[in-house]
């Protein structure tokens, strides 16, 4: 069933509707899985991928063949780990060793786990985890080493948090804790993916020397989700917003949704968004290190979705009541727009403008938010400088408007000039012939010209003058013929 509100939305945003149709009809994946050659267990893995991840499944399946299966399995393994961590029905005494040794499980053929509560949504993945392990054994050795290493780090991080009673009751405390938590659940994924990309030579290996960049990729996504999911997480009894931030605005975390706290609530979202925004320029920097199109799309699409989401949740009080999401049409538009670093930068610019527009001097973080947006803008300017000088600007605009290079534009101009010249020349020749014929027939242009000079502009007078000139010419010819 299509909702009326959805219909209304697309009536107002026909571009988005167009984007959905374009994406559905015209989009051809860069790479496609060859399902015929896939084993039943691998097919099952991809089914799980579809079931567990709505947003990542499509981009993972379009990855180049060297990475597609490894990244899909990496995702499923972390999802399995997450499903165990998330499940509050598992006793800590059972959960902790399971999390800490999850990397070893990956070598145990036939291993699976049926201890999840019946309501855990990805329970089935753990029940059939043996298919993941079976396929894991078949991917290249370097990939296995990377995935196991990240699994071990993440499992231990999760176990530490599961053990931390304070964290479970009060949520995240300081901003440093918040960064660390996000590092475990998202920054490490960024690290693992980067190592996989570099191992298959799809990314600049300099990215390995700058681990803060891959960490930023994860943190930017995770923090945006944490802001967006306030209401959902609170309903599940979880709080991820760091106390160091929210306690500046309110005494009790769960009281943000109250109408009387609206201003405090909006200012708190602002600071949360400011915190997330601090990673944006590093994400763009990271993307500059990707060398292959499918990997670029895989890495960039979640980032543009995140900046769009961030601009949507920024100072939006609905965040406290429901899960605020970007429209499907907008998501399709974004996927169509992602192509290279320049277009991704333009998308970031577009949404930074939205944030800037919603920013208000009433907000205690007003100028800091301005500066955070300015920092991204300055970074983009540093990698894609705006052309200087009038000529360059004019060319740049022309290019933007028509998609032509200056050379093409010059060529087109030349063609138009030649075309006009040809028309003028043709008209001139025809006129000359007509005048010539009239003259041959004895037209008295001197009389006509004289009449005009005398100020005799009236059509009658002129035409009579011309007519008389012609008639007299004809009559003057006629007798001669008669004589002949």
């Amino acid at each position: 069933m299509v909702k009326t509100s959805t219909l209304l939305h697309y009536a107002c945003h026909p571009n988005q509707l167009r984007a959905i149709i374009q994406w559905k009809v015209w989009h051809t994946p860069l790479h496609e899985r060859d399902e015929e050659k896939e084993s039943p267990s691998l097919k099952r893995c991809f089914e799980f991928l579809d079931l567990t991840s709505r947003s990542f499944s499509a981009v993972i399946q379009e990855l180049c063949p060297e990475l597609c299966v490894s990244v899909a399995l990496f995702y499923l393994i972390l999802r399995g780990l997450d499903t165990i961590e998330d499940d509050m029905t598992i006793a800590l005494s059972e959960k902790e060793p399971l999390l800490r040794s999850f990397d070893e499980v990956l070598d145990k053929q036939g291993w699976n786990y049926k201890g999840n509560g019946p309501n855990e949504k990805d329970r089935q993945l753990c029940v059939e985890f043996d298919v993941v392990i079976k396929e894991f054994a078949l991917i290249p050795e370097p990939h296995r080493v990377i995935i196991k290493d990240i699994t071990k780090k993440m499992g231990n991080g999760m176990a530490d948090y599961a053990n931390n009673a304070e964290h479970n009751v009060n949520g995240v405390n300081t901003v440093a804790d918040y960064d660390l938590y996000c590092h475990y659940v998202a920054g490490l994924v960024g690290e693992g993916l980067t190592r996989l990309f570099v191992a298959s030579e799809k990314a600049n290996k300099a990215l390995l020397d700058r681990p803060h960049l891959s960490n930023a990729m994860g943190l930017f996504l995770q923090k945006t989700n944490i802001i967006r999911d306030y209401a959902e997480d609170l309903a599940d009894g979880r709080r991820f917003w760091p106390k160091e931030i929210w306690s500046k605005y309110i005494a009790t975390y769960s009281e943000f949704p109250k109408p009387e706290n609206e201003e405090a609530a909006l200012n708190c979202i602002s600071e949360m968004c400011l915190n997330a925004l601090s990673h944006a320029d590093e994400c763009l920097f990271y993307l500059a290190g990707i060398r292959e199109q499918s990997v670029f799309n895989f890495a960039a699409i979640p980032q543009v979705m995140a900046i769009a989401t961030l601009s949507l949740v920024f100072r939006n009080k609905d965040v406290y009541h429901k899960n605020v999401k970007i429209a499907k049409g907008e998501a399709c538009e974004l996927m169509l727009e992602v192509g290279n670093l320049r277009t991704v930068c333009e998308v970031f610019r577009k949404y930074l403008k939205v944030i800037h527009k919603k920013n208000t001097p009433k907000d205690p973080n007003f100028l800091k938010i301005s500066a955070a947006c300015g920092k991204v803008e300055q970074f983009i300017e540093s990698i894609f400088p705006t052309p200087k000088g009038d000529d360059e600007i004019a060319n740049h605009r022309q290019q933007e408007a028509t998609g032509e290079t200056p050379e093409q534009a010059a060529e087109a101009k030349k063609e138009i000039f030649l075309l006009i010249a040809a028309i003028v020349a043709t008209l001139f020749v025809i006129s000359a012939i007509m005048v010539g014929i009239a003259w041959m027939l004895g037209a008295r242009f001197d009389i006509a010209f004289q009449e005009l000079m005398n100020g005799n502009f009236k059509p009658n007078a002129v035409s009579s003058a011309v007519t008389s000139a012609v008639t007299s010419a004809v009559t003057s010819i006629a007798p001669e013929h008669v004589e002949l």
Partner: protein
Amino acid sequence: MSVPKKQPLHNVLVVGGCGFLGHHVVKLLLEQHPECNVSVLDLRTDVNNFPKVAYYSADITSRTQVDEVLSKSKPEVVIDTVSPIFGLGKDIYFKVNVDGTRTLLEASTDKGVRAFVYTSSASVVFDGVSDMRNVNESAPIPKVPMDAYNETKAIGEKMVIDANRKRGMLTISLRLSGLFGPGDRQALPGMFIALERGQTKFQLGDNSNMADFTYIVNAAYAHVLAAEKLLAMPVDQEKTTNTVDGEAFFITNGEPVPFWDFVRAVWAAKGHVAPYTIVIPKSISSFAGAASELVGWLTGKEPNLTRQKVKLSTCQRYFDIRKATTLLGYKPLVSLSQGVLDGVAWFVEEEKKQAEKKGQ
């Protein structure tokens, strides 16, 4: 790991040390270098004084007066912060920025000063027309200067750079942009006037233009850093891509923001947020500026709005300060938003003091 030892400063002469920037340099020197003997040379030395500082009233265009001060204070470092305010005559700019700088440079070289730090302006690369987006030190000085101020600052800077390593003196030039803070006589007071006049609803241009502002303490800090860096250089240090002597550096807060955002943040710090905004497009603004100048010219009054003001509040004007962060190790001490709060708080405090004086 050992903390890198800070270069001590023993004897520093701050020229213009009673001015807005100069007295902040003095203050920071006293705070960061308690070992340092600080002297000040200024035309008038009766304001912005600190204890334990030697003050000398002198004219920098007079070689004899400058020589006298140098003989008494015997500085190893001269920090020249002299800068006449905006809107004075061409003659004054030439006299102070060109003649004064030359006199100071020559006298300092002759007296064996080791380091000379010059306060320049980011505007030296501004031609008055083109946008300045993320401009760095590779930008040329425009052939046709925008005005006498920029022209004379550029000449002064060139003399300072050219004087580097002549008879052992090392020089450096710091190009500042948009100074504001306690003691400020132009930026913040100008914004307060607009607030008093109830002009806060108006915005010239669409506010897509970013501008760089610099909290005065950060600007002062850059001068202290520059002095330390020059003194720390070995006497026979060869010139490389990493040496800072004979170089110009852009110095800002490193936090460019849309121009009107900064202004609104200042007003907000004073407790005022405009209920709505009236955007006056850039083209109309320029026209209004010209009209206002004409009226001002006809009536002989200082115009409220000028084309210059319109240009400065609608053009892109921000800089890439990576040269300063990497080579000088410059990192702003105070963030832009904290600077606004501190700066406005100082003015509020001053107003209170004034009111109390009047009340007595």
